[in-house]
């Protein structure tokens, strides 16, 4: 049984078709990487799984998207969906609030008032995202005073605090330096024990290092989807081969 699934998914931004008949199943507690050149639809597909495309005007979607066999677009409340499917964005986007308030945001919007509950959850989430040791003494400082890598781990902590089962990551390390990037990768490796992770990345080595399965997209189509090892050593499709070896893209 798949945790996340897309069946015959098509999506248009205005007249431009961004996804073409994509069917893909994502397994629980694994890391799935979406790779492909810019504009291939990988981010678009990712954003379908928590309906972030709804924010973009003039978007038309056809096909089925399932979370635990439930239809994301028809069977569940959009706010409920986004609490179950968290998202981490390309550029770290902490709120201009304190570190504590950033992580507590998700709890507060669901109406959690108990200070002890919030405090414990903030601590747990920050430990989860391997940031606690660096910020435990400065929780009241502005999140914007942190470095880029720390900000991104803070954003991950913020997402984890609402107890999602799936975490979508849209090029989470592309705006970071190599050391911060490596920390994010280590974190992803840890997180997959408890969460289902889908990561969009432009970095081929990153996909090879962190993911169990890799999907290659090209011009809105899913070209190939297989175990990461196989995708990088023995791809079936010529375009996949060319892309992963760096011959185009």
């Amino acid at each position, binding site marked *: 049984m798949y945790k996340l699934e897309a069946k015959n998914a098509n999506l248009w931004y205005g007249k431009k078709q961004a996804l073409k008949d994509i069917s893909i199943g994502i397994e629980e507690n694994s890391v799935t990487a979406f790779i492909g050149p810019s504009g291939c639809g990988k981010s678009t597909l990712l954003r379908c799984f928590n309906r972030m495309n709804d924010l973009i005007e003039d978007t038309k979607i056809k096909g089925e998207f399932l979370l635990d066999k439930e239809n994301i677009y028809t069977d569940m409340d959009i706010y409920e969906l*986004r609490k179950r499917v968290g998202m981490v964005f390309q550029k770290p*986007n902490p709120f201009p609030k304190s570190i504590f308030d950033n992580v507590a945001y*998700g709890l507060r919007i669901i109406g959690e008032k108990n200070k002890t509950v919030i405090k414990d959850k903030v601590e747990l989430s920050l430990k989860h995202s391997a940031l606690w040791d660096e910020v435990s003494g400065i929780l009241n400082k502005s999140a914007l005073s942190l470095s880029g890598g720390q900000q991104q781990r803070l954003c991950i902590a*913020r997402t984890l605090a609402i107890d999602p089962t799936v975490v979508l990551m849209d090029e989470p390390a592309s705006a970071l330096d190599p050391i911060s990037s490596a920390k994010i990768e280590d974190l992803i490796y840890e997180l997959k024990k408890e969460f289902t992770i889908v990561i969009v990345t432009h970095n081929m080595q990153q996909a090879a290092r962190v993911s169990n399965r890799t999907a290659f997209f090209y011009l809105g189509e899913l070209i190939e989807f297989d175990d990461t090892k196989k995708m990088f050593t023995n791809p079936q499709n010529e375009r996949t081969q060319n892309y992963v070896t760096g011959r185009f893209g």
Partner: protein
Amino acid sequence: MNSKNYSRGKLTDKVFKYTALTFTLFALAILVILLVDIFSKGLARINWDFFRNLPSRHANRSGIMTAMAGMLSLLFFTIIIALPIGILAGVYLQEYGKKSRFASFIEINIANLAGVPSVIYGILGLTLFVRILHMGNSVIAGALTLALLIMPIIIVATREAIKAVPHSLREASYGMGATKWQTTSRVVIPSALGGILTGIILAISRAIGETAPLLVIGALVYVPFIPEGPNDQFTTLPIQIFNWTSRPQADFIINAAAGIIVLLLITFLLNGIAIYIRNKWYKKIKY
């Protein structure tokens, strides 16, 4: 040839630089002359009595008590009326309103309203509030007129401030299952608050200096009492100054200068606060 062109370019550069400098100094000099003139005339008149006295036909016994009281009560009601409407309209137009031809029509008109000469608002206020709604030349009629005048400024400032909030912050909030209202009230407005506050203060400082619309709706130039409620008649500092400058006796000119100093200080103070908030804010939120 090349070196000749180069030296000519350098010359043009210098000429332009010093021309610009001259004009800048010219503008500054006028400002300095104005200030020196006002301060040398008026500073001696500024003392505790000047703030405490009612207007009088004896210049040296005249004060700005009623003008200040009138101005404060006028501002109080102006802010109460204009602030919520202006901010909510700005938030609605920017965050909730759908992009349509009608929306952009409204947008252009609000921007235009911010540029309409203030005396026109006075005529509107006179017709609508004073005559049709029978408010008379009261504080509330004046406040409503000034509220109309500064509302477009607040709306435009609110919209600009909200527009400047990075879209990524909204995405982060929506991505965690927040509703539109939660996102707007907890993320967007707090992030835009610096800009909104700056706009509000500048709008208030504009309202303080306004004379023309209030004269049109019939604010009194001589008010020997302090307004006690929204239905009382009133005067304000700029009108009091206007009154004094139109008197033939030289002593009243001194009063006018003193009043101008007070008005200038209030305006400088408000603008200073606005600049302080803006700088502090932009340092804080940087992406």
